[in-house]
């Protein structure tokens, strides 16, 4: 269960997989032997969340329970255990800023400040226009490029206040900022280019 504070909202009474989603759903279910369909619960929850604009309504939990022959509470246990499932609505761009030690040492406080100022929301809140939700999260596993944040499916790394603001401004303007390191570095290679193994055989 993530720490998003939702404003009061209404749970949709029903949920239905779209034909496209259903195709993916069936592909995942088919991966597991008969009687073991429950193993597909996590991808199904993800598909439902993506289809539903980034959050998982209660109705979807029931639908997945029915689909996999699982008691609702078992699906709910999974959905509430993993922080990647949002059980309350989030904005179109879900901004998760890592503040665990490596990122914090490398300036995640400034990144968080820039997000707060740029979006006008506090941790866990969604902007009034419903475009952005800001959330402080624990380690996302990109410590080598700290500090970093995740927006939607993309990692934006090696951030500082300026690059953070620029990325958010791009998103606000409908542009697609380039994911990955925001400084002169390729993936997780050293800043300024490789320092070893420079010669190829």
């Amino acid at each position, binding site marked *: *269960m993530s720490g998003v504070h939702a404003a009061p909202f209404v749970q949709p009474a029903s949920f239905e997989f779209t034909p496209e989603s259903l195709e993916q759903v069936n592909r995942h279910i088919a991966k597991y032997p008969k009687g073991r369909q429950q193993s597909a619960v996590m991808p199904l929850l993800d598909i439902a969340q993506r289809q539903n604009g980034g959050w998982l309504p209660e109705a979807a939990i029931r639908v997945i329970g029915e689909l996999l022959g699982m008691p*609702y509470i078992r699906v709910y*246990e999974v959905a509430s255990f993993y922080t990647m499932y949002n059980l309350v609505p989030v904005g179109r761009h879900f901004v998760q800023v890592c503040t665990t030690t490596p990122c914090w040492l490398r300036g995640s406080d400034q990144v968080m400040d820039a997000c707060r100022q740029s979006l006008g929301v506090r941790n866990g809140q969604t902007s009034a226009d419903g475009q952005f939700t800001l959330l402080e999260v624990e380690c996302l596993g990109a410590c080598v490029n700290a500090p970093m944040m995740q927006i939607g499916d993309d990692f934006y790394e090696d951030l500082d206040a300026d690059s953070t603001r620029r990325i958010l401004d791009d998103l606000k303007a409908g542009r697609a900022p380039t994911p990955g390191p925001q400084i002169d570095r390729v993936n997780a290679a050293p800043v300024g280019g490789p320092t070893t193994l420079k010669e190829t055989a």
Partner: protein
Amino acid sequence: MPTLTIDGKEVTVAQGTTVLQACEVAGVEVPRFCYHERLSIAGNCRMCLVEQEKAPKPIASCAMPAADNMVIHTNTPQVKKAREGVMEFLLINHPLDCPICDQGGECDLQDQSIAYGKGASRFHENKRAVKEKYMGPLIKTVMTRCIHCTRCVRFAEEVAGVEEIGAIGRGEHMEITTYLEQAMTSELSGNVIDLCPVGALTSKPYAFTARSWELEKVESVDVHDAVGSNIRVDFRGKEVMRVLPRLNEDINQEWISDKTRFAYDGLKRNRLDRPYVRENGKLREATWAEAFAAIAARVNGLPGGKIAAIAGDLADLEAMAALKDLMANLGSANIDCRQDGAKLDASVRASYLFNSTIAGIDKADALLIVGSNPRIEAPIINARIRQRWLNGGFRIGVIGERPELTYDYDYLGAGPGTLGEVASGGHSFADVLRGAKNPMIIVGQGALTRADGAAVLAAAREIAETYGMIGEGWNGFNVLHTAASRVGGLDLGFVPGEGGLDVGGILAGAESGAVEVVYLLHADELDTSKLDKAFVIYQGSHGDNGVKHADVILPGAAYTEKNATWINTEGRVQLGNRAVFPPGDAREDWTIIRALSEVLTGGKLPYDNLGALRRRIAAALPHATAVDDIVSAEWGSFGEAGPLGDAPFASTVTQHYLTNPICRASYTMAECHAVIEPAHEGTGTHG
């Protein structure tokens, strides 16, 4: 058979035994919270740490299989230190509210903290607080106290068969809840209260009414269904405060149904606490002498054939024996204990018993259920069937309604037609029965209370005989009763004598005037409107259905108020013991009949105390002295082969929580009926 050494003592245990169980064999007590011998092993509380030689660190004994040559120490400083550490962790977030906690005094955490708790806390941070969860009308929650042992989760999943409780969230935010905080829809939900090692789940009706150490305790048996669950009645003064299960591996193991546990508040309401006599169409309070005089005035001089007696669901063996003797003295053969009109045959004992026994379900390998919904007729037996089903290799077929049971079954058909097909071997399930080593059949009252009940019984007997259910050391023919009194009544022969009328005949006779006096002994499940014209004597504990047309009311005792014998559906004789005295002028039932016999011409009964009455019963019914035992019954010929009807079988229990006068007087049961039974809507278990 591994042999291991525990605290210097060598023990040999069965393969698959855990170290914790081996410790128990060796007589060493190991503290635990999550481990429970009837649930799967979770290994998450870590309280059962012991030291194993050559192991680098303490091991959780509940999850460690015992192996050859293990050397276990349970009383070393290291073990004590480890357990103290675990206890300290558990107490980080556990509130220190024992003085206001209902579990106080019978709390595993409280008890074990005496042995392993530190005197003071080293933590200055706030304890975590968790919101209370709604779990229904029976379970009160204080989730801040929860230590996440997950016993309740495992019970719901494994024993109750309703996966409705789970642990949501993770880490420090983990919380135990039902899905969306709905009421738990199990008939066994109250058992999580006993399982909870702390005060997180406690009894809602019992909340703050008593402390465990101020209660007196009496061991007794339950009468809300025909299972005869062993119970302990806790009382204070003249009030029953709660009912708890008592261990009996052969019957209820350590569970009881919610009805057994929570219907006790019905013992305090709607009680008949003094005799009443109807005068000018109105009931008025009377003395015992006036009530007896009114009966004598009507009965004396009446030919026996015009008098009838019906024993209901909550009549004890002694009262039925006394009433039977009284009716014989009055020259009446019109007696019947089959209040629901079941076509049971009292002459062959095996024809109305749960012959395989409840524990025998464990040995069965195929089951045919006919006209019964065990889940609501006998939740304890249903749990036993589920337990057997979980072990695998157990095919279950159901003929009748299509209830939501807690196990998978093959639905064969709705009515007697399917039963005939199975009997003749024309149905595919017949092969399942034929291939089974210990097949069994459960015939419910829903199949027997019909016009063709005797023919259904005959068809069931045919199935039992055809498919090898009757053999050396195995009798798989079972009748599942719904009333605690029924087997006792049939054993006594509380059925019409030579030329006597049965329940249907008595009611019809009362309507036509052929029967002028009807004696109802705890009989409420009747169409009493037919008794309008007759002179009705009602003896019972509650002002329920039976008193509507009563002309004289004799206040009797409820099951917690008398020393009485009950024979359960297996034919097991059990003694119920008195916890409190009956209210007001009410008396133990057999004494009322004995006193009444004095004023009826030629009616006087020859016993003056319970011992004499029991000796009288034992003379006629030798097995009645074999308390807590089952005397197995001889197989015989019963039922009447005949045409089977077309109507589908339907369970006789439609409202599980309202089956007898005690439940109907209970607020708790009324609430369960309102909250939980609609949850079963459409599954055939609602009324």
